């Protein structure tokens, strides 16, 4: 297991956003998370990536415990251990969040060099290969503001991949993009799936989720309502809520 989240609970004030969620992801697996707005999808990813602290449950990456609960109190691992665990994952944001003052190449290279302390020339070679793969070979010296949204998102994916994460999270990677630009980003993610990159993707692109994932999770109201093989969940949903949700999408 790359990621094991169990009994995850999270609330904001009185609002319970995650109620006893379990998310386990195997090596090479591609998991899509779908569900209505406000169902807690982003919050789940933010808890998985330590951007939010959980209020209960356990988080493990590759058998290393990041957070656990004893007697109703959550204990996070020490700073050093968390820093080590952080190397196992990457996150691609809806709004890209590239560093605007860095060139495309520097956006991709900087963290491997200044966080992992790797050799600069080696990192540059890899970064250029990654940009090549993203179809951005001639954009290395551009700045993010000179790129289209789709190109920016592909830089963001390259930036995340440059850290060689064991698992990559995407939170609605194409929601800020026009339809034509959406396709180019989805094609990249699909290619990563074919290369057996472990990924968890929150998306509203149903046909994409159906095509690319090994497993689909439908969330609603802070619960996982239904999950399974994409053909099953999309083609023959068991739960009433899932049926309703998918019908709204078709209509």
């Amino acid at each position, binding site marked *: 297991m790359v990621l094991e989240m169990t009994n995850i609970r999270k609330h904001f004030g009185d609002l319970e956003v995650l109620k006893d969620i379990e998310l386990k992801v195997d090596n090479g697996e591609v998991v899509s998370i779908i569900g209505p707005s406000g169902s807690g999808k982003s919050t789940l990813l933010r808890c998985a990536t330590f951007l939010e602290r959980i209020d209960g449950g356990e988080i493990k990456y590759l058998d290393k415990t990041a957070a656990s609960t004893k007697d109703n109190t959550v204990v996070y691992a020490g700073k050093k251990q968390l820093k080590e665990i*952080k190397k196992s994952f990457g996150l691609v944001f809806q709004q890209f969040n590239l560093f605007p003052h860095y060139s495309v190449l520097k956006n991709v290279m900087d*963290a491997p060099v200044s966080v992992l302390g790797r050799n600069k020339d080696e990192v540059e070679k890899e970064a250029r290969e990654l940009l090549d793969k993203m179809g951005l070979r001639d954009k290395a010296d551009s700045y993010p503001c000179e790129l289209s949204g789709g190109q920016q998102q592909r830089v963001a994916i390259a930036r995340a991949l440059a*850290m060689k994460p064991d698992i990559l999270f995407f939170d609605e990677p194409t929601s800020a993009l026009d339809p034509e630009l959406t396709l180019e980003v989805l094609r990249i993610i699909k290619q990563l799936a074919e290369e057996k990159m472990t990924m968890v993707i929150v998306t509203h692109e149903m046909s994409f989720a159906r095509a690319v994932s090994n497993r689909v999770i439908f969330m609603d109201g802070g619960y996982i309502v239904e999950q399974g093989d994409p053909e099953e969940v999309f083609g023959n949903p068991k739960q009433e809520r899932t049926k309703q949700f998918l019908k709204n999408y078709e209509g």
Partner: protein
Amino acid sequence: MTFSTMLLTMGEGMLLTILLFALTLIGSMPLGMVVMFMEKSRIKPIAWLTKVYIAIMRGTPLMLQLLVWRFGPYYLFGISIGSAKLPALLIGFILNYAAYFAEIYRSGMDSMPVGQYEAAGILGYTKIQTFFKIILPQVIKRVLPSVTNEVITLVKDTSLASVLAYAEVFSIAKQISASQTSFIPFVIAGVFYFVANFIVAFIMERIEKSMQYYK
């Protein structure tokens, strides 16, 4: 008094004005950063005291503050600090301008999207790396226009030092004008401030341009 002796006497005043201006900037710009962090401190008494300090600095006339720094030690504590005026002036100017710079920096920090911190955090940057590599360069770009305004105000505010009879250009102009019953010293002083600000604006514009390669 000939025009050239007038100019020469005033030239010494100009040098003192420039000295006061430069030392105030060198002291207050970094101190403003410290004040900004103190204002944002999680330790409540520090944040609160810093807010009070900023409110006083901005809420009372700088001229009055200069008088307090010059004569306060004597009237309040009976300490005589001798006749040197520059220390009191520098304390007054630096503490005052640090408060204004702190507010400018703070608004720049507050305008940074949280996504920049989150992206850096996920990539594993430490807090210090995040501040110096990711946040600070962008904040500098954002606050530059406000900083330019403040620096231009400082050029003119140096004339307040005349309240302590510090021999900067404005004091000298007043003296010569009175003794020679001439209006020309004020014209010379006016041209000096104008040219100084012209240079400041030119330099700041160059710096702003150098950061225009990104949005």
